[in-house]
């Protein structure tokens, strides 16, 4: 079944270096419509009705977030575009930024109009520094054409920290601090950047805004499942013949993505959502790709039958230990303990008692960690224990 292109519709169609090429393909019509024909309330209403949910991993309803910031009182408000994708196996935003920076900027400007913000930031991960000039060039052209209309949009670059993809840590980073998660509430919509009402949206979320404004909420909500509307862009890598970026209607089966599009064979397991994501065994490929099943930010890493589950989970936890910001104890210490236990199993020196401890620790971390990193850190461990428990048991010290 051919998949529609909503988010990627301009990729490899327009010349991302020339705004005229974007304008020839209908660029900035949505912004004009939003500014001239719609009130902020109508815009947030349209986004709410569309059912668009955040594409950065958490899946929070975008319209509700915008509504919260629109109705929040404050002299200054901010729009932040989260271009800090750091989840293991994610590269879709890099692809989007390379191929179509203009739609993103248009989405940010519509967001600004909708919540009454006059200032915005694109927070770009420093690992993508080679995209900075490209993005700045697009922004300069948008400015020259007069589309900013008094809105100040600035690119801020990170300095290397996975946790800064987490929204509250990202705001701390823009404020020039260590990127550490904040206690919530208050939520960013009422108290975000410098304590002002702020919306933070992933690159892909904002890419959906211009098409929704142009075509309407009904058009958008026809695509997908009951709780997952529209399309999703996936980053597929690992043991596949055709790694790359694929856009699919939400609810499509995982099998179509990994076997038909990415050409994977002999799948042992698929990791969906990167290090904090979920694990599915090869016999569950008919699972739909949707928020109600599993999705994350759309990182899909495929492992074939030659791979060792314990090795994969151990490496996943090593990543999380390094990237935990260290602010809260369950995450800082929990990931440390987990990696030690997993290392023992990796060396075939595990014990059944430690297996039970892993499960108890997982529950504690999920319940008590400050942000999504610590809460989701045990996912891969728990899923692998559910589907590949025998591999752990085989590694118990004799």
């Amino acid at each position, binding site marked *: 079944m051919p998949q529609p292109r909503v988010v990627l519709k301009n990729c490899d169609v327009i010349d991302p270096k020339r705004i005229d090429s974007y304008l020839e393909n209908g660029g900035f019509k949505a912004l004009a419509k939003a500014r001239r024909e719609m009130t902020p309330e109508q815009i947030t209403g349209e986004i709410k009705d569309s059912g668009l949910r955040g594409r950065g991993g958490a899946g929070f309803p975008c319209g509700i977030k915008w509504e919260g910031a629109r109705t929040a009182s404050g002299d200054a408000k901010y729009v932040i575009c989260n271009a800090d994708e750091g989840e293991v196996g994610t590269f879709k935003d890099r692809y989007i930024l390379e191929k179509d920076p203009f739609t993103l900027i248009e989405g940010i400007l519509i967001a600004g109009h909708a919540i009454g913000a006059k200032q915005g930031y694109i927070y770009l991960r420093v690992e993508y520094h080679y995209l900075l000039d490209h993005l700045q060039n697009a922004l300069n052209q948008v400015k020259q054409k007069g589309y900013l209309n008094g809105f100040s949009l600035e690119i801020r670059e990170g300095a290397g920290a996975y946790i800064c993809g987490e929204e509250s840590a990202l705001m701390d980073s823009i404020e020039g601090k260590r990127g550490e998660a904040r206690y919530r509430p208050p939520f960013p919509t009422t108290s975000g950047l410098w304590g002002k009402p702020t919306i933070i949206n992933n690159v892909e979320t904002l890419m959906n805004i211009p098409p929704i404004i142009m075509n309407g909420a009904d058009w958008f909500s026809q695509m997908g499942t009951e709780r997952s509307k529209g399309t999703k862009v996936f980053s597929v890598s690992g*043991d596949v013949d055709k*790694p790359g970026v694929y856009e699919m209607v939400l609810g499509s089966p995982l099998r179509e993505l990994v076997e038909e599009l990415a050409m994977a064979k002999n799948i042992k397991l698929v990791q969906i959502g990167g290090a904090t994501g979920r694990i599915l065994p090869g016999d569950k490929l008919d699972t739909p790709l949707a928020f109600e099943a599993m999705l994350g930010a759309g990182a899909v890493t495929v492992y074939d039958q030659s791979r060792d589950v314990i090795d994969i989970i151990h490496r996943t936890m090593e*990543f999380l230990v390094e990237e935990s910001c260290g602010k809260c104890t369950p995450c800082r210490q929990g990931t440390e303990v987990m990696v030690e236990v997993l290392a023992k199993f990796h060396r075939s020196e595990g014990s059944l008692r430690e297996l039970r401890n892993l499960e108890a620790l997982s529950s504690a971390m999920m319940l008590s960690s400050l942000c999504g990193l610590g809460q989701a850190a045990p996912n891969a461990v728990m899923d692998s224990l559910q589907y590949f428990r025998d591999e752990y048991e085989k590694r118990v010290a004799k």
Partner: protein
Amino acid sequence: MAGKGVITPPRDRADLVERLKETQRRYGHVPEEAIAELAESLAIPVHEVYGVASFYSFLSLKPLGRNVIRVCKSLPCYLKSAEVIMKAVEKELGIVPGETTADGRFSFELINCIGLCDHAPAMLINHDAHVDLTPQKIKQILKSYE
């Protein structure tokens, strides 16, 4: 260290990360003296500047080589034999991750996912992306950095 460290006139607290990056661009790392100077010019405690400087992986408190190699060690690259690439760099330069060559030309580090998984194995040298690496390519690539 008069004049060292502070490059632009102080604006505000939010510039700290950017100012540390400027410092690093200029000196190859963030020297202790620069931390003290930044703290003074931004009117914030030294430990706060140190805390930020030590938090981010692209900021370094110890001197680095003129070029910094960062080979990705995360799973998608690992599946595509990133370890062979690491060995090739080690062999070519005679240093292991965390070290700098005696002539100061290269530092070698390992890095978590850099979002080039569709072209794994991958690495960054300074800010340049190098993808679809093979041990043979490593030699050629390294030659192009002085």
